[in-house]
């Protein structure tokens, strides 16, 4: 691959100065060879983990694994770091089967291969077994419109229940810097201070869930995640969900990518700004009023036992609609989805807002 003899100095890796540079880092503009890039990427994730004391020795942690690039890279890097730095953590792959033929069944095959490649236990929890409804049957009943709302609410509970089943109270997800920057922008535009406060935290534990969520890749650029997967030849799956194709065409995502093109450091700058905003938000605005009243009023869903502020949890409320074949909840529930899922479902919601995309991008 690499040219045999003469490499001009301008093409050399700026770190080892021995090999041809193949990567231009968006964060720093530094030009690195493959080996230096892979080890720098790993070192940065390690630094994030150590500086936030994310893991404790002897604990079991579930990796929310979809078979996509982010969670595949996350699993691979965590395995590498766990061995290299002896975290003493047992990682388990936790996948959700939404029941979408031609999409999730294929991506789950990728996760099954990953489980073998990384020597990790794999647990798959399906909507069908948890709720009696697969997404295929949901869409058959209500159509494609609004189906992401159901999927988002169901997924959050499903991850929690899967973790519970494993006796695990910490789930890591593959959210990257681009995801966080996008969420910061959207929460800022919507003036949603409580979410703006929470969305940049590396670890979130919420009153509505006994399971902590964290994002070890929060400072990792999507570009570098893809390049890491590519140069390490990782096995990942990359097809759009058939019920929400082109969700990535949402305006906020397009804006983030257009900003990166002009000034690559912009993504990390937005993440850092989000963190700074978070520190500026007065404590009374950190939780929404609904949340505040919930603090004391959290109880178990009378039907399924999940933590909720209402009599019925969101999933059970949605299930009621489905079972009565009277879907009407879509808009109301949107606002209640927690941060993690909010990133993608908000993205879809924002499509309607059309941020004058043309004007900004040009």
């Amino acid at each position, binding site marked *: *691959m690499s040219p045999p003899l003469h490499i001009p100095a301008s*093409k050399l890796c700026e770190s080892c100065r021995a090999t*041809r*540079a*193949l*990567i*231009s880092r968006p964060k720093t503009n530094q*030009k690195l060879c*493959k080996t230096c890039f892979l080890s720098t990427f790993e070192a940065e994730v390690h630094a994030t983990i150590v500086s936030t004391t994310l893991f404790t020795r002897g604990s079991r942690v579930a990796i929310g694994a*979809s*078979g*996509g*690039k*982010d*969670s*595949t890279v996350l699993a691979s890097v965590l395995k590498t770091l766990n061995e290299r730095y002896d975290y003493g953590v047992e990682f388990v792959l936790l996948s959700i089967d939404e029941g979408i033929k031609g999409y999730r069944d294929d*991506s789950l095959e990728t996760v099954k291969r990953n489980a073998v490649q990384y020597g990790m236990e794999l647990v798959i929890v399906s909507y069908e077994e948890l709720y009696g409804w697969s997404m295929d049957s949901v869409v058959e009943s209500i159509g494609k419109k609004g189906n992401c709302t159901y999927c988002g609410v169901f997924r959050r509970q499903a991850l929690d229940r899967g973790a519970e089943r494993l006796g695990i109270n910490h789930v890591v997800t*593959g959210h990257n810097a*681009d995801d966080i920057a996008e969420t910061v922008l959207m929460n800022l535009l919507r003036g949603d201070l409580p979410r703006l406060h929470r969305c940049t935290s590396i670890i979130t534990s919420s009153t509505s869930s006994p399971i902590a969520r964290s994002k070890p890749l929060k400072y990792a650029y*999507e*570009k570098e*995640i*893809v*390049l890491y997967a*590519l140069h390490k030849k990782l096995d*990942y*799956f*990359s*097809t*759009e*969900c058939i019920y929400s194709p*082109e*969700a*990535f065409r949402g305006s906020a*995502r*397009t804006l983030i*990518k*257009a900003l*990166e*093109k002009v000034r690559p450091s912009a993504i990390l700058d937005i993440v850092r700004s989000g963190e700074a905003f978070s520190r500026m938000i007065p404590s009374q605005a950190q939780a929404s009023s609904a949340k505040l009243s919930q603090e004391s009023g959290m109880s178990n869903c009378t039907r399924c036992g999940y933590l909720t502020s209402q009599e019925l949890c969101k999933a059970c409320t949605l299930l009621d609609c489905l079972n009565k074949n009277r879907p009407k909840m879509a808009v109301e529930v949107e606002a209640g989805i927690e941060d993690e899922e909010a990133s*993608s479902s908000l993205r879809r919601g924002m499509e309607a807002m059309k941020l004058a995309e043309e004007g900004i*991008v*040009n």
Partner: protein
Amino acid sequence: MNEQQGPSANGVRSNPISLNIEFSGGLEILFSNQRDHRIQLPAKDSSGEPANIMFLVHYLCENLMKDRRKDLFLLHGGIRPGILVLINDADWELEGEEEYLVQDGDIILFVSTLHGG
């Protein structure tokens, strides 16, 4: 490497350039669900300038892409932001991006970072 590049410089005609084009990260869907393509690219664009990446992507869009959603590959006249381009394994930013002059035998990989999982 590419000595047989036709009757040169202001030459009347140049041999086409053989390229290996690869699509990954979800982009293959736009190109007949096929990851690897071997193509012959005209050595010069319509105004007689040597073929560069910009010429190549427009050529691909017009000749190889069957999907009608052209904006998933090209946006505002350039490659859609969020699609990475690797020229012989190297980030195209290291090679001059759109201006890079393609060479016979180049492997050019387009990877989308936009698809979730």
